[in-house]
């Protein structure tokens, strides 16, 4: 009965969709594989928002504990609510603001990816980013509950966001490469069904033959060893070296998304809520991100 219940719940299905993204099963690894880029945009977005809200709660633990000590309960609850709304806003607004330019750069540089695959790709990489973020949430919540030092918590948050961001980008570049290769091959196949003359198509043919020879080895004797030969979601495949279009698109995307994201994070402050300041949903605009991180580092020893 419980298994039926689990099967019926759409949220659980969406969680499984995110799990497939993390395992690298949503993006076709072999370009000759005639499989769609299967990501339910709505479902994955819902899970992404849920993960962002959860991480926001972990951020709010610091103000909750501090509020309980000083009996400022309403301030603590307001700050927690603010954190829970701001983390999804940070990622959602950044994606909305940058998506048009990300798509246009991608088209200008010469990738043949259409709008929907590009959007799916970005949502999938946000899902990876947030899954790492939320998995580090318990560590943040524990340190928030046991640390009175505001600067330490700020630095820990910066480190966690950085780790999650790097892993999200590692996923993005591999997924982009696999998808770009699959699309290019698909188009080449339509144009020249008989002879693969282009270098990309011929390497793909070679990789298909290589895949067939590896398949000839009976897998069932070493199921674990055979499984590990498949590169994971964030690993490059020796069959598919990064092509130069992918490198250029990726560099542009990092620049645009990173700059807008950092500034968005700065505009949406405070995420944690300094215990010395009164509650405010937004702070007046001042200074910049990097200066603040350096200051927090020095204040930790003060």
């Amino acid at each position, binding site marked *: 009965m419980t298994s039926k219940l689990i099967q019926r719940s759409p949220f659980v299905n969406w969680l499984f969709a995110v*799990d497939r993204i*993390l*395992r*690298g099963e949503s993006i076709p690894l072999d370009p000759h594989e005639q499989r769609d880029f299967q990501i339910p945009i709505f479902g994955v977005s819902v899970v992404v928002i849920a993960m962002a809200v959860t991480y926001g709660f972990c951020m709010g633990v610091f103000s909750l504990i501090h509020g309980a*000590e000083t009996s400022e309960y309403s301030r603590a609850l307001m700050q927690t609510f603010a954190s829970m709304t701001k983390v999804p806003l940070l990622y959602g607004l950044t994606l909305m603001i940058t998506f048009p330019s990300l798509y246009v750069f991608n088209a200008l540089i010469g990738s043949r990816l259409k709008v929907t695959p590009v959007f799916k790709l970005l949502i999938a990489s946000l899902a*990876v980013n947030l*899954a*790492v973020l*939320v*998995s*580090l*949430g*318990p*560590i943040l919540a*524990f*340190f928030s*509950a*046991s*640390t*009175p*030092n505001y600067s*330490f918590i700020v630095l820990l948050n910066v480190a966690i966001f950085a780790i999650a961001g790097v*892993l999200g980008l590692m*996923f993005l570049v591999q997924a982009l490469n696999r998808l770009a290769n699959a699309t290019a091959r698909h188009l080449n196949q339509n144009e020249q069904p008989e002879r693969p003359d282009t270098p990309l198509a011929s390497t793909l043919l070679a990789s298909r033959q290589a895949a067939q020879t590896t398949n000839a080895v009976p897998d069932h004797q070493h199921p*674990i*060893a055979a*499984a*590990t030969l*498949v*590169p*994971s*979601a*964030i*690993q490059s495949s020796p069959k598919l070296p990064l092509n130069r279009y992918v490198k250029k698109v990726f560099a542009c995307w990092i620049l645009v998304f990173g700059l807008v994201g950092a500034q968005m994070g700065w505009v949406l402050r405070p995420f944690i809520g300094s215990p010395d300041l009164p509650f405010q949903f937004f702070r007046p605009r001042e200074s910049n991100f990097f200066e603040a991180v350096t200051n927090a580092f020095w204040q*930790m*020893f003060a």
Partner: protein
Amino acid sequence: MQSLSEISAWTFGTIDQVLSGASASPAISKNNRAQSKIRLRTAASIVLIAGLAYGTAMGCYAAVANQRSWSEQWLQMLFSGVKVPLLILTTLLIALPSFFILNTLFGLRQQFNESLKAILMAQAGLVIILLSLAPITLFIYVSVSPMPQAYSLAVLWNAVAFGSASVAAQLLLQRNYRQLIRQDSKHRVMVRIWIFIYAFVGIQMAYVLRPFIGSPSNEISFFREDPFQNAYVKISQLIWSAMDLWG
């Protein structure tokens, strides 16, 4: 009903398997299922029982030093006994989600059960090593008790005991992981990441859960009276002030 000799044979057989790292190797479990009897549940109960036993021994300091009666000291012994498995298992729970997601991203999800087993076996090894040091702990408590700095020496010895048990458990973890690393070298990176996350959380957890021994001059309580502090901030402040003294 099992006879006493059977129970002791099973117990020492299990301890042997944990300490030799044989039980965590998937190759052995595949070829010869009869040999690998240890399950995750068994490893977790070893952590609970042996941790409780060492913690109880650790917490009897004030009574052994004749500074408090046994009728009062049992509460501290109970607290310390609960705290050792609590330290190990809560740290595991807090560190596990990120380890799971990282394993999935690196494509090691299929062997996650084996990884978890290797980790839990190493922790079972840690508490077994600790428990084997318990007689020395009691001996040291008894022999230092006449000295004026007895409590500091007791704390120092426990730091040495935990430190050496952790180092030994880390070697055990490397041994348990050997088979996994042979299958996929990415596990080598994973085990290093695990040690880092676990140590990062564990040091703060140990700091939060103080007192483990219980100073005879303080009242018996589960947590210290003063509010929680951050271990890393404390350490860096200590280093900072030491540098100020020299400068």
